[in-house]
C-alpha cells in the first residue's frame, strides 16, 4: 500500500471501542495462576497445622528426625537443600553460560551449532529416575575414589573429611548440576539471541574484541534473562526429588563433609511420605512449607541481582 493511501485509510478507519476481551482473558489467566498457587499453599498449610502447633520455629533449628518418637527437626535437611542446590548451580552455571554464548556466536558453522543445541536439549529429555540410575552406576564410584583420595591428602579439612561414601552430598550435587544445565543453557541462549544486533555491531564498530563485546555489552543486556534462567534452575534443583533420593545417602545426621551422606527437604518428602502417618505427615508438610519459604528467599536474592543489573543497563532497550 502506498503511504498516502495507508494514511488516509487509518484516518477514516472506524475507531474501536468497547471492552478489550483479550485483556480480560489474559487477566483471568493471571488470576488463575495465582489461584493455583494459593490453593496448593492452602492444602499444604492445612496438613501442616498440627506440626506447626507442636514445634513452631524450633522445627528449623532442631537436628533430630525420629518418626517413631515423634521428634521432628529439619535443620540437616535445610542445610542439605541449600548446599546441594548452591553447589549444583556453581558447577552448572559456567558451562551452561559458556555453551549458551558458544551457541550464539559463530565459532562453528550453523549445522554444528544446531547439533550441539540438540544434544544439550537431549539432557532435558532424560527422566529423573534415569539420572538417579546413572548416578548409581557411574558417579558414585568416581566420587568414592575422589573422596578417599581427598581424605588421605587433606585429613584436617572438615569439608573433605572421610570416610568417603559414594552416596553423598557431592554426588547428588553433581547429578543435579547436569539436570539443571539444559535449563540454564536454553533460557540464557534465548536471552542472548534477543539482544539487538545493533548493540553488537555498535561495539565492534567502536573497536571491541569479540569477548569485550560479550562481557561489556551483550551479557549485561541479557542479564535479566540469565538471572531468570538461574532462578528457574535453582528452583528445579531445590525441588528435585527422585534422583536426589537415590543418590544422597539419606542421612538425618548433620555433617559438614562433602563426602558424607546427607539429605534434602525434597528427598525427605519422597522417602517418607508414602509410609507416613499421623504427626509425621504433618511434619513432612511443614518441611514442604520450609522449602517454599527457601524458594521465596532465593527469589528475593534474584530480584536484588536483577535490580542491580537493570540499573547498569538502563536505556539500552
Amino acid at each position, binding site marked *: 500500500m502506498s503511504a498516502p493511501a495507508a494514511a488516509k485509510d487509518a484516518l477514516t478507519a472506524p475507531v474501536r471501542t468497547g471492552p478489550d476481551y483479550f485483556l480480560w482473558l489474559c487477566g483471568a489467566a493471571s488470576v488463575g495462576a495465582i489461584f493455583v498457587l494459593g490453593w496448593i499453599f492452602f492444602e499444604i498449610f492445612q496438613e501442616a497445622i498440627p506440626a506447626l502447633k507442636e514445634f513452631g520455629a524450633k522445627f528449623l533449628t532442631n537436628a533430630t528426625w525420629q*518418626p517413631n518418637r515423634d521428634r521432628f527437626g529439619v535443620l540437616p535437611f535445610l542445610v542439605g537443600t541449600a548446599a546441594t542446590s548452591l553447589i549444583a548451580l556453581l558447577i552448572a552455571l559456567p558451562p551452561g553460560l559458556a555453551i549458551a554464548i558458544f551457541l550464539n556466536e559463530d565459532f562453528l558453522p550453523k549445522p554444528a551449532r544446531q547439533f550441539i543445541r540438540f544434544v544439550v536439549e537431549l539432557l532435558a529429555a532424560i527422566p529423573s529416575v534415569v539420572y538417579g540410575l546413572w548416578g548409581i552406576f557411574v558417579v558414585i564410584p568416581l566420587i568414592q575414589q575422589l573422596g578417599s583420595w581427598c581424605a588421605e591428602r587433606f585429613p584436617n579439612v572438615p569439608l573433605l573429611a572421610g570416610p568417603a561414601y559414594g552416596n553423598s552430598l557431592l554426588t547428588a550435587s553433581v547429578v543435579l548440576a547436569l539436570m539443571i544445565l539444559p535449563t540454564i543453557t536454553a533460557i540464557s541462549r534465548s536471552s542472548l539471541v534477543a539482544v539487538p544486533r545493533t548493540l553488537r555491531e555498535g561495539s565492534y564498530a567502536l573497536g571491541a574484541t569479540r569477548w569485550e563485546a560479550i562481557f561489556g555489552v551483550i551479557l549485561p543486556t541479557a542479564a535479566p534473562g540469565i538471572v531468570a534462567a538461574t532462578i528457574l534452575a535453582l528452583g528445579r534443583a531445590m525441588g528435585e526429588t527422585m534422583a536426589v533420593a537415590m543418590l544422597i*545417602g*539419606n*542421612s538425618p545426621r548433620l555433617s559438614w563433609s562433602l563426602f558424607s551422606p546427607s539429605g534434602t527437604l525434597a528427598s525427605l518428602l519422597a522417602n517418607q511420605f508414602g509410609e*507416613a502417618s499421623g504427626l509425621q505427615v504433618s511434619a513432612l508438610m511443614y518441611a514442604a512449607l520450609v522449602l517454599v519459604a527457601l524458594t521465596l528467599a532465593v527469589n528475593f536474592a534474584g530480584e536484588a541481582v536483577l535490580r542491580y543489573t537493570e540499573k547498569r543497563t538502563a536505556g539500552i532497550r
Partner: protein
Amino acid sequence: MRILLPFVTALAAAVSVQAQQLSGTGATFPAPIYQRWSVEYNKQVPSIQVNYQSVGSGAGVKNFLQGVVDFGASDAAMTDEEMTKSPCGAVLIPATAGSVVLAYNLPEVKNLRLSREAMAGIYLGKITKWNDPAIVAANPDTPLPATPINVAYRSDGSGTTFVFTQHLAAISPEFDEQVGFDKSVTFPVGIGGKGNEGVTALIKQTPGTIGYIEFGYAEQNGLSCAALENKSGQFVAPTPESGAAALASVEMPENLRVWPVDPAAPEAYPITSFTWLLLYKKYDDAAKLKALKDFITYGLTEGQSLATGLGYIPLPESVVAKANAALGTIE
C-alpha cells in the same frame, strides 16, 4: 495429531467389552506377586482387570481409609484405631509372606553366622569391625577381616524396616530403648538406601557392607545372606522352608493379625512376616465385590504356587483356610 491417537484407541477400547476394573495401592514388598496374580488371573478371566501400584504401606492405608481404592495392602496390617476410621469397616486378609535377610558383601566369607548379640550390636553401632569378638565367636572356622562394617539401612519408610526393627527390639532391650521399631527409625550408624533396590546397590558397591533387605532381592542379585541365631539358639539360613517353619509356629488369631516376631521353633528363620490385603466389610457394587472375591480366592489358592519362584513364602494351609473364611464374611 498424535494426541488424537490415544483418544481414538480409548474410544475403541471403551466401545468394546467394558472390563471390571479393580484398583488397589499399598506396600511395595508384595507388589510383584500381586501384579503377577493380576496378569495371570486376567488370562483366565479377561473381564477382570486388577491394577495394583506400590505407594508404601502408610499411603496404602491412607488411601484405603479415604475410600479411593477397592482394596489396600500393608506390611504392617492396620491398628485397631485405623480400622475404626474406615468408611465401611475393614477386613484384613494375609495374602503372602516373606523373610527379611541380612545380606553382606564379604567375598571371602561364604557362610556368615550372626548371633543375636552381633545383629543388635552392629545396628547399634557398638560392633564396628568384622573381626569383633562377638562375630568371631559364632564363626570359629571362618577368618574374618579387620575391616570396618559399613551398615546400610532403608532411608524410606518401609514395612521391611518395621519387621526388622521389631525383631531387633524384641531381642535387644537396648535397641528397643535407643532406636525402637517403626516403619522409619533413626539408626545411630550407617547409610540409607532408597528402597530394597537402593540397599541392595549399597551392599553390592562396597565390600564390607551389610544391610537388611527382602529375601527376593538377595536371591535375584546373588548376595550372601547371614544365618541368624533364633530363639532356640540355632543358626538358621533364610530359605523357603525355614520361613515356612516360622509362619507355622504362630497361631493365627481371629482378626488374622499376627507377627512371628521371635519364633521359638528350632528350624524357624527369625525374621519373617505376613503381608495383608485390606478390604472393606461392605461393598455397594455387587459385581465389583464378586470380581474382588474371585481374584483374591485365586491368589490364596493357585496364586500361592507362584510365591517361591518370586522370593516369597507360601502361606500355610491353616492360614489359607482362615483367610478364605474371612473373605466369606464380606458382603
